[in-house]
């Protein structure tokens, strides 16, 4: 059985809930009180992950930290079709790794801005936002050119990869850090496509794809 050490409002934890839902994997959740309890810095949790970071996944005694690493593990072990992380395609693997690192950069800018605005973390908010916009500009251009080649996803191929999952949460949550996606139409079309992948689930702050969602007044 798989156990996920999880916090609902964490986008990095959401990556794994999302991916396990898409792969139709059953798992248990151990909720970690990130705020206000700071349980990720507690003694019991530091024994599981000395970095004091979420998420952590345990699969029959095998413990792994870092959302991107866990995505690689889950895809390699549980995606029978080998589409999310095609281990037989060196170029695609390189491409995926490049975008997993890019996802980490999105975390350190867009997620940091969200933590600043929502939970009052002491970050340089202007630097976080500027950094996120720089990345989104690059990302939007990449996706625009991909669309011109009739590609729907970040990496070449007709199936999404774990790069799409890794990049999605802190892009879709960016407005909570005051980072608008208004100027990134290709990003907006891509987030809509991700929302239509079978098995897609939401988290607090993320809404399902249309039928056009009507905001409450």
């Amino acid at each position, binding site marked *: 059985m798989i156990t996920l050490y999880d916090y*609902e*409002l964490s986008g990095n934890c959401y990556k794994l809930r999302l991916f396990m839902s898409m792969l139709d994997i059953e798992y248990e959740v151990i*909720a970690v*009180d990130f*705020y*206000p*309890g700071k*349980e990720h810095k507690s003694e019991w949790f530091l024994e599981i992950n000395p970095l004091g970071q979420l998420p952590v996944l345990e699969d029959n005694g095998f413990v792994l930290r870092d959302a991107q690493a866990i995505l690689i593990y889950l895809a390699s072990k549980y995606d029978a079709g080998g589409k999310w992380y095609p281990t037989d395609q060196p170029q695609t693997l390189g491409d995926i790794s490049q975008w997993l690192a890019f996802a980490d950069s999105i975390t350190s800018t867009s997620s940091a801005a969200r933590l600043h*605005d*929502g*939970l*009052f973390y002491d970050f340089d908010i202007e630097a976080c936002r500027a950094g996120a916009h720089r990345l989104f500009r690059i990302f939007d251009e990449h996706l625009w050119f991909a669309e011109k080649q009739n590609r729907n996803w970040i990496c070449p191929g007709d199936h999404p990869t774990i790069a799409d999952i890794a990049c999605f949460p802190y892009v879709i949550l960016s*407005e*909570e850090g*005051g980072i608008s996606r208004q100027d990134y139409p290709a990003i907006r079309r891509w987030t809509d496509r991700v929302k239509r992948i079978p098995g897609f689930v939401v*988290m*607090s*702050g993320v*809404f399902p794809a249309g039928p056009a*969602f*009507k*905001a*409450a*007044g």
Partner: protein
Amino acid sequence: MAVCSDKTVLNQWYAIGATEEIEPERMTETVLLEEELSYTVDALGSPKVWRTGHDAGELVPSQCVYGYVWTCLGEASGEVFAIPEFSEPDRRNMNAATIGVNVSAPRAIENFLDMGHFPYVHTDILGVEPHTEVKEYDVEISIENDEILATRCRFFQPMASQASGGGADVEYIYRVPHPFCSVLYKSSPVDDKRMDVIAVFLQPVDQEHIRAHMMLSVLDEDNDDKSIRLFQQTIFGQDKPILENQFPKRLPLDPRAETPIRADKSAITYRRWLSRKGITYGVIPAAA
């Protein structure tokens, strides 16, 4: 000189931080009504709040109520409004979260009062289609307490709280005893004669940003604090993007400004009440 020129707003008490999240003697900085403040709570639980922007060092009134440090930047008069349930011995009282939201305080209060969004925003928790109808309820302004009271509110909820065993028709009572605070009572899943209390105490950082303090006073012997809190954080996390996408961010008080839908009876009353009080902070006042 205070930045906020709205005397009614300036003279209110505001929660600025949960006492259980403050280490004794440690100084915390915050902003209220565009004024920089610092606060501490000593080992005996006594608070101290002082200005750190203009008139730096000047002490301002403070008190600890409902698990928070409260302060007032104008002329403090009277007490913080009463929540008698808070002192009942078998209740679990806690701060579910203090979360920053990019919205005006009145917009956030209005959303809190609106049951119509439950099935769409809190799908499968506080509401579910096709149970979307907001049934007839009563709203009045209590002259005696100068507060809004909405009663007989009922809504079908698949999972009303962490202690719920399943879907049920849930009864709500809303109070708005302060321009930027609301207290919600909802049927307790464990005691059919009593109600759980969920209060939001909004701290206006400026006219379009708030810190929302969410206080719970619930009857629940089975779930731990963590899961009770996480349930409310999940709910609040769903409201956040709705709040932050409100346009304009300030609440228009002109009755013709936005066409309220039929469910918005309490919203209309709230807007009128703010107008009558002459509130200008965080709103777009009606043209004279």
